[in-house]
Every structure is written in structure tokens, then in C-alpha cells.
């Protein structure tokens, strides 16, 4: 190990010299937290991206009506001081007075009504409609009170309000328009966005007028700059050379090595994220493609040794979910799932039965770590499926997936950290842009499960959906994610299992 570290240090020194020897110390003195991320954010407007980076950014820059305590997972007041549920399809919020947006305007019921009516309207084309299609309409009942009507009973409604419903400033956004808003966004969160360069960087500064007493608290670190880099190696170089103070999703293989550096810390925490392999069972990329055949899809499930991937590649306690969702989510009933063991011989046999004794070629797009994608590729290769791996950026892949252009792709879904299966399955099976199964029964069951508060009815519907999805091998859950973080030891940072780094809670030591 010594030799390797020394060699690493030599490269490091070279990298430093190459960069004109920028300061190797954390930016404690400049009070600027420098963050580097791989997934370049296409649009910072929280409703117009469905990338985790976007969720992370919006929780720094925007406030929602309620806050979910990351330790207890209890929903607490944020912009709403209290709420009532007079019946199963109504929520009445009382809003907090004296809250200001970054542009100095006051927060009122108009802003909430504007936001909710905008995002629930299909014409607004938000990125994840499944997150909002349960909202019927919002109406103003007073200057500081709002009534929200739901289309159907929605058990996880408050979780959604806490995780994915930041509030827009109506006056400002209407004045500048959606496009300009994405370039100079304004929210009511602990950090204000001072400069947004799409896909390159985002600069934040502490919002000095942030309301006192918020569970998010006033940010301790004055400035924050987020930069996007293309790959993991660059990101690691930035951290090791002291040009970044915080990175995440670093390769688990480097976890121990980073921890050996005296000035760096690496921590990990299991998150609600599930890695998956999506298969075009509906024939969106071509009506008679091999993946439309059930036996081919079952062969693919049998071909991949998911347990070994979880144990040896992902590491840190990663699990293999039986059902296509995160095991703790309500309705993620693993016992309803058809299980597929690792059995390459059976996979080959199934392929032969499906009419592909010599396998076939398929394009496999991916935005997960390249070596994880290669592992899957090799497993498929071993049974005769010659997958051509095409490594893409998250945003580009999602765009092509939604357009129905990807026959098979490797991705991850974090459910917006909502502990209910309604945040997972509908995204992939509701007949929308991400649905590569197009199974009307599954769509019906998901609506059934999502439109009542009756736990028994919900479980029954979701179990039926999971049973069909796994039996038909539409969508392969590969493993749960263990998020890795690497940061400067000068930084005091706490990771939470909801995979939402809270930079407003971070401080310098």
C-alpha cells in the first residue's frame, strides 16, 4: 500500500503543478465550500430536472411547506406552521408569516397556490409528473392559508410536500418567465443562488434574511460553489489535490484509500437508491426486438449475479431487492416477487428456447460507474448476449430513455427519498415516458394502490403489480446503493440516509 500511496502522491504533486499550484488547503479561510459533482445539472429549476443533483440543489436554495427530519423521518413545519386533514382528499395549510424570498419579496398564499397549480397541470410538462399528479388544485383561503384538494387519497402526500415541492416566488417567476428563472432562480431557502452556469457550475451564498427558527437553520458557511466535472477520476483528482472540499458517490474501491489521507475523510451510508437494468419489453425501440420476449428477459435476470455485485462491487452493506423498489418502502412487498437466482446455464437454455441459441447483440446505455456497467456486460456476455456498452451522462441518458430510444439501460432511482412505493413504481410503469413495459394491468394496480389510504387495499394492489412485474421480468432491480462521501477533514458534515447532503448544516471545524 505504501508504494501505491507514494505513487498517488507523486501524481498528485504533478496534478498540482499542472494546475498552477492552487491552494491545497480547504477554503476555510475564504469561507467557501467547494463541491464537485459528476452529474451536470441540465436545469436548476427544481421541477424541470429529475436528477438527484437537482434535488440536492433545491433543498439548499428553496424551502417547501414542510420539512422531514432526517433522523426521525417525522414531518415538521417549515413554510407552513401547521396543517390539517379535514378529509382524505384535503389538506389545509397555515403559512408562516414574515418569510422572505431571496429577492426580498414576502412569502404569501399566492406563491403556494401558484406553485401547486402550475406543477399539477400536465401542460407545464414537469420532469416527474408522477410526483404531482395526485394534486387536484390549490386555493387561497386567506393571505396566509391555503387549501389543497387532492385527486385521490394520497398516503405519502406530506412526504412529497417535504421532499419535492419547493415553493416558487410567484411575482418574480411570472415577471421573468420560466427560462430566465432557470438562469437566475429565486427561492426561500437558506442559500441563494448567485450565479448559474448551466451544466458547468452553480454559486451559492448564505441568505442573510433567512427566517429564524427554521429546522434547516441559518447556514454556517458563507459561500458554496458547485462545479460539474465529467468523470470520477477528475473528481477524485479535485479532492486529492485540494481543489474540492466535498465529493460524493466516489468509487467504493477508493473508500479506504481516501480515509488513509490525513486531511480527508470518507464516510458511507445506505440510501434509498436502487440500481436497475431497464429492458424494452414493450418494443418501443423496435416491435420485434429480442427483449420483447419474456424468456429473453428472464434469461437476463438469471445471467447476472446480483448478490456478488452487491457484496464485491458496491460493498458497504448493499442488498439485492427482490421486488423492483427499495425494501423499506411501503408496498414494496418482496414476498410477492418472483425470484431469479444466478444461473447462467438456465439463462442459456432460456435464450435457446426463445430462439437465440447463439445469443444476440444489444446496445446497453449506462450512467452508473463504468466498471459496474462492465461487470453487467460481462455477465451478459457469458450467456451469449453481446451488449455494447455506451457510457452517457445522467441527463443525456434520461432524455434518450424518455424518448423511447434505449433498448436496455443501467440507471438508478432514489425515489426522492420517499419511503413509499408510490415514489418508485409509477415512474416506470404508469404508461408515461419512462415506461418500457406498457402493461395496462400494472398501470391499473398502481392507480388502485395510489388512490386510497387503506393499507390493505394498497398492499394488495402493489403486490399484484410487483408479482406481474417480476414474473414478466420487465425491470431488473440490481442492488441498493450505499452512498459514499469524501470530504476535507476541516469540514464538519453529517450524511443522512435520505441521500440529501445538507450543506446548510455543515460547518468548518
Amino acid at each position, binding site marked *: 500500500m505504501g508504494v501505491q500511496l507514494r505513487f498517488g502522491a507523486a*501524481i498528485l504533486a504533478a496534478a498540482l503543478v499542472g494546475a498552477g499550484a492552487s491552494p491545497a488547503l480547504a477554503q476555510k479561510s475564504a469561507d467557501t465550500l467547494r463541491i464537485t459533482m459528476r452529474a451536470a445539472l441540465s436545469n436548476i429549476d427544481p421541477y424541470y430536472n429529475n436528477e438527484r443533483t437537482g434535488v440536492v440543489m433545491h433543498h439548499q436554495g428553496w424551502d417547501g411547506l414542510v420539512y422531514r427530519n432526517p433522523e426521525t423521518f417525522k414531518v415538521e413545519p417549515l413554510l407552513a406552521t401547521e396543517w390539517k386533514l379535514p378529509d382524505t382528499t384535503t389538506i389545509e395549510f397555515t403559512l408562516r408569516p414574515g418569510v422572505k424570498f431571496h429577492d426580498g419579496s414576502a412569502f404569501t398564499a399566492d406563491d403556494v397556490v401558484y406553485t401547486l397549480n402550475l406543477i399539477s397541470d400536465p401542460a407545464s410538462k414537469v420532469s416527474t409528473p408522477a410526483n404531482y399528479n395526485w394534486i387536484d388544485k390549490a386555493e387561497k383561503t386567506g393571505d396566509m392559508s391555503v387549501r389543497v384538494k387532492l385527486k385521490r387519497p394520497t398516503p405519502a402526500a406530506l412526504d412529497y410536500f417535504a421532499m419535492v415541492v419547493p415553493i416558487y416566488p410567484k411575482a418574480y417567476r411570472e415577471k421573468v418567465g420560466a427560462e430566465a428563472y432557470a438562469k437566475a432562480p429565486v427561492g426561500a431557502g437558506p442559500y441563494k443562488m448567485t450565479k448559474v452556469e448551466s451544466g458547468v457550475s452553480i454559486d451559492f451564498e448564505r441568505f442573510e434574511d433567512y427566517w429564524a427558527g427554521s429546522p434547516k437553520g441559518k447556514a454556517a458557511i458563507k459561500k458554496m460553489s458547485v462545479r460539474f466535472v465529467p468523470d470520477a477520476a477528475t473528481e477524485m483528482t479535485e479532492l486529492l489535490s485540494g481543489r474540492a472540499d466535498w465529493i460524493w458517490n466516489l468509487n467504493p*474501491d*477508493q473508500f479506504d484509500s481516501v480515509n488513509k489521507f490525513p486531511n480527508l475523510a470518507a464516510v458511507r451510508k445506505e440510501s434509498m437508491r436502487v440500481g436497475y437494468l431497464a429492458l424494452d419489453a414493450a418494443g418501443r425501440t423496435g416491435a420485434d426486438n429480442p427483449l420483447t420476449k419474456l424468456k429473453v428477459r428472464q434469461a437476463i435476470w438469471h445471467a447476472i449475479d446480483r448478490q456478488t455485485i452487491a457484496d464485491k462491487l458496491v460493498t458497504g452493506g448493499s442488498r439485492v431487492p427482490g421486488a423492483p423498489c427499495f425494501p423499506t418502502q411501503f408496498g414494496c412487498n418482496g414476498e410477492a416477487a418472483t425470484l431469479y437466482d444466478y444461473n447462467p446455464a438456465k439463462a442459456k437454455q432460456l435464450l435457446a428456447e426463445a430462439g437465440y441459441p447463439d445469443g444476440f447483440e444489444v446496445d446497453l446505455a449506462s450512467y452508473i460507474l463504468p466498471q459496474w456497467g462492465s*461487470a453487467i456486460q460481462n455477465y451478459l456476455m457469458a450467456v451469449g448476449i453481446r451488449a*455494447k456498452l455506451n457510457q452517457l451522462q445522467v441527463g443525456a441518458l434520461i432524455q434518450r430513455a424518455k424518448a423511447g430510444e434505449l433498448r436496455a439501460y443501467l440507471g438508478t432511482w432514489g425515489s426522492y427519498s420517499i419511503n413509499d412505493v408510490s415514489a418508485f413504481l409509477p415512474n416506470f410503469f404508469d404508461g408515461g415516458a419512462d415506461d418500457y413495459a406498457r402493461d395496462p394491468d400494472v398501470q391499473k394496480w398502481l392507480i388502485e394502490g395510489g388512490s386510497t389510504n387503506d393499507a390493505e387495499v394498497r398492499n394488495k394492489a402493489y403486490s399484484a403489480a410487483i408479482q406481474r412485474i417480476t414474473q414478466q421480468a420487465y425491470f431488473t432491480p440490481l442492488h441498493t446503493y450505499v452512498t459514499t462521501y469524501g470530504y476535507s477533514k476541516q469540514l464538519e458534515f453529517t450524511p443522512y440516509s435520505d441521500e440529501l447532503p445538507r450543506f446548510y448544516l455543515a460547518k468548518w471545524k
Partner: protein
Amino acid sequence: MSEPIAIHAPLTSRVGVAGFTVGIVIVGIIAVAAIIGNQLVPHDPFTQDLGNRLKPPFWMEGTQAGHLLGTDQLGRDYLARLVYGARISLLIGIMTVITSGLIGITLGVLGGFFGGRIDDAVLFAITTRLSIPVVLVALAVVGLMGSGLGLVVATLGLLLWDRFAVVARATTMQIRSLDYVNAARCAGASTSHLLIREILPNIASHLAVVATLEMALAILLEAALSFLGLGVPPPLPSWGLMIAEGKDYMFFSAWVIMVPGVALFILVLGINLVGDGLRNLLGSERSR
């Protein structure tokens, strides 16, 4: 100290011969490894073993018996992959030289022999080719047609013929009106006889030197393209691809990029030594 200095073997030439020998030995060993190496290495270059990943090579601690050069990030034997990669590098080098040589020599000899309009056309083709950036074209080709071994050979072969053409044209011009060519012409030899039997054999030595240079260049370009994800598609173990796959690990498991990097360096060095040696040998021959 009156020992006469041998005129036919000056000092530079002796160094040249040594270099040539070393080059031949290096290329020979790598060629043998490429051809029969995978029969000698007891592992398959494609079989992954996730429980046995990133094992260091024999000179480091924690090495695993049986994996002489360790294993890569997916537990594949690194020696097996390296040897298989040699096959791909040499294959691409040789195939590219054959393709580009055919194109370049044909154009160059025709232009140099006939001159006039034909030469103008050949010169125009060479100028056009020289103004095309290789990597950019490769990028466009891969974007349009996907990546693959055959495509890399075709792309490089169609792009790297310019030096063959320049050298063939210049040398043909030098000898086209020499006495033996004229003699053959007067004896009634056909044009094809002149080109194939009189011109080609007499410029072959120059072309052999160009061939070695082009081969080294093609191997390096393939590695560069594969590193950029535009060359040989994974999981084929091209050396460039091995470096690309290992770059995430370079800080903490440096051998993952060092091994293919050093291999690439040695192979290209070997080929260049052969080329230099050829040039020196042929040069001293001519000076006689």
C-alpha cells in the same frame, strides 16, 4: 593505435545494428506472445471474478499466486488481457499498414511515374488528406457507425496513407528516368512491367521504413481512440482501453494503468527501433 576504421561499419551504424536487433527482439517477443500467449497464460482474458479484484502484480505485497500481473477492477487476469491486447494492437498495426500502404503506394507511384495531370491529382489528394484531422474524423465515424475493431482498422487505414504516398511519389520520381528503367522501356516493357518489376522493388526499402513508422503511429492512435471510448469496444482488452478503464484507479492502484502503459511504450519503441535500424542499414548500403 593504427587500427584502421572500417568504412563499411561506422560507429553510428553499429549502434544502429544494436538498436535494430533490440527492436527485432522486442517486436518478435510481443508478436509471439500475441500469437500463442493466450495458450500459455492459464486464464481467460474475459472471465471476471468479482471476489478477486484489483490484486496487485508479483512485485507488490498482497499479490495472488497465479496472477502474475495481478487482476483488474473486475477480477480479470491482467497478464491474459495484456497478451490478448498485444494481439489487437499488432493486428490493428499490420492491417492498417496494409490498407494504407496499398492506397498510398498506388497513388504515389502513379503520380511519381506519370507526372503531369495524374501527379497533380495525386498531390491534391495528399494535400486534402493532410488537412483532415484524424481524431475528429474518427469521432465522426464512430458517432455515425458505432465502434468496432474493423471500423478502427478501416478508419486508420483510410487516413494514414499520406506518408506512403509522399515517399513513394518522391522516390519514384528519382528513379523513373534512371538508365535501367529507360533500358527496360526501350526493350519494349509494358507500363505495368515497369511499375511492378522495375520501380517497386527499387523503392521498397524506403517504403519498409515508412511502414514501421506508420505501424507504430497506428498502434498509438488506436490506443488513443480506445482511451477516448472511440476505438475498440469493451470488453475487448485493447491496451488503450485498459488504460482508460484503469484511470479511475490510478491514484491508489497505479499498476492498473502502468502495466498497459509500459507495454504500449515498449512495443512502439521496438517498432521504431526496427524502423531506425532499417533506415540506417539501407542508408549505409546506399553510401557504398
